[in-house]
């Protein structure tokens, strides 16, 4: 699979010693590859606020060719996102975002999100768990 995508600004290899990565709903490792992290900079085209996972769709433009690719970003459930302070209207089509996550294994232009930052405000949506615990 082509690993240099439009807007991919960073891909750091991570050392992972896991054999049994487990998520609440499904096995992470069956769907995503932690050894292929990706950062995507683009604009929101659609949000699916659904169970068992919400999905964020973003258009990412290749800075060299100008070609635009629509990426599908898996997130947690609306329940988990709501508990982090998200709402289904927090992101709207056209909003600029930077998404960090891992590449999907079986489908091009699929990734998960570990973090989403809004371009306009620099606000990190769904900050790390201990943030705000002070």
């Amino acid at each position: 699979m082509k690993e240099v995508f439009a807007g991919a600004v960073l891909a750091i290899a991570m050392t992972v010693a896991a054999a049994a990565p487990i998520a609440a709903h499904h096995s992470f490792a069956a769907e995503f590859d932690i050894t292929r992290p990706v950062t995507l900079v683009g604009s929101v085209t659609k949000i699916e606020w659904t169970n068992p996972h919400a999905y964020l769709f973003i258009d990412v433009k290749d800075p060299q060719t100008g070609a635009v690719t629509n990426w599908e970003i898996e997130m947690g459930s609306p329940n988990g996102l709501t508990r982090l302070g998200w709402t289904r209207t927090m992101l709207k089509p056209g909003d600029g975002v930077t998404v960090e996550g891992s590449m999907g294994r079986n489908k091009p232009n699929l990734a998960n999100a570990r973090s989403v930052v809004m371009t306009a405000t620099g606000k990190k949506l769904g900050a790390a768990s201990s943030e705000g615990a002070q």
Partner: protein
Amino acid sequence: MKWAATALVVLFSSALLLAQAGRGAIAGRITTDQGDPAAGVTVQAKDAAGKFTSVVASGNGEFRLANLPAGTYEIVVPQMGLRTARYAQPNVVIEAGRTVTLNIRLMPNNFGILGDDEAFLQIYNKYKDLKGATPRTSDGHPDFSGMWLANVDPNPTPAQMLPWAQQEWERRRDRAFEGMPTSRCLATDPTLTLPVFYKIVQTRTLLIHLFEQDPHYRQAFIDGREHPKDLDPTWLGHTIGRWEKDTLVLDTVGLNDKSWLLQATWLPHTEMLHIVERYRRPDLAHLNIDVTIEDPASFVTPVERHVTWLSTPGEELFETICPENNKFLQNSAFK
């Protein structure tokens, strides 16, 4: 195979004299994988005899275990929810009169799809100081009703499986546990030990668990009835309960062999599965649950888990209709 946490560990000793001869200390700071203070996590020092000494990290993630007899310890940070991986650093030598510094960076357990469980520590810290007496029902029994944030056993002992079960477990592992029933929108683990929210509704005759995975409820009959004969095996089985003083003992049989047991382990089992849960509420904030999982056709000895749930009265369950938009099968690398 266990998930071995990748951690940044800095070990050095400082010449801090301690008051008590023959004793030393360990101190440091715990951060998340993102570098934030991991407030509220428990740090355990396990000595050579298996005895634990523990302390909870402060708001800035700092911890100190003082007055430890000189010796060799394993330092453990148990898994918190689905968010963090269990951390274990063996062979930490505590010398008399010295403080060992151990800075720990936790790693995500599930590689962290945003929203999956990122809020666990945040919610845990919101309620961890909740205090009060055990609430009781009008008939004098402890009242377990309310919203609970479950957690995993901080020190789980590995299951000893019979050969067929071991082979099946290895097959699951080699397929990255892609076959988890919940990934197909099937039922959750019947041991009800996932580190998620459970809501308990208690009446004189029923103890009902509500949760955000299929089948969304389990009812335990605490009206004195027995298990029916010739039960058709089901995902969560048939549960009855009886009071032993302030402990409610729940007994579940009639289980099918399709469920996977225990988060991060996912054990196979047969229809001989028998689950006994002992519920105690020692105070307002905590629910202590001892789970014994018996299946002589799968395990050499019963598997035990000891968990503590935290009362979270300001939280609520959400509707969760899994088949609404489940893309796992089309996105999975395994076909």
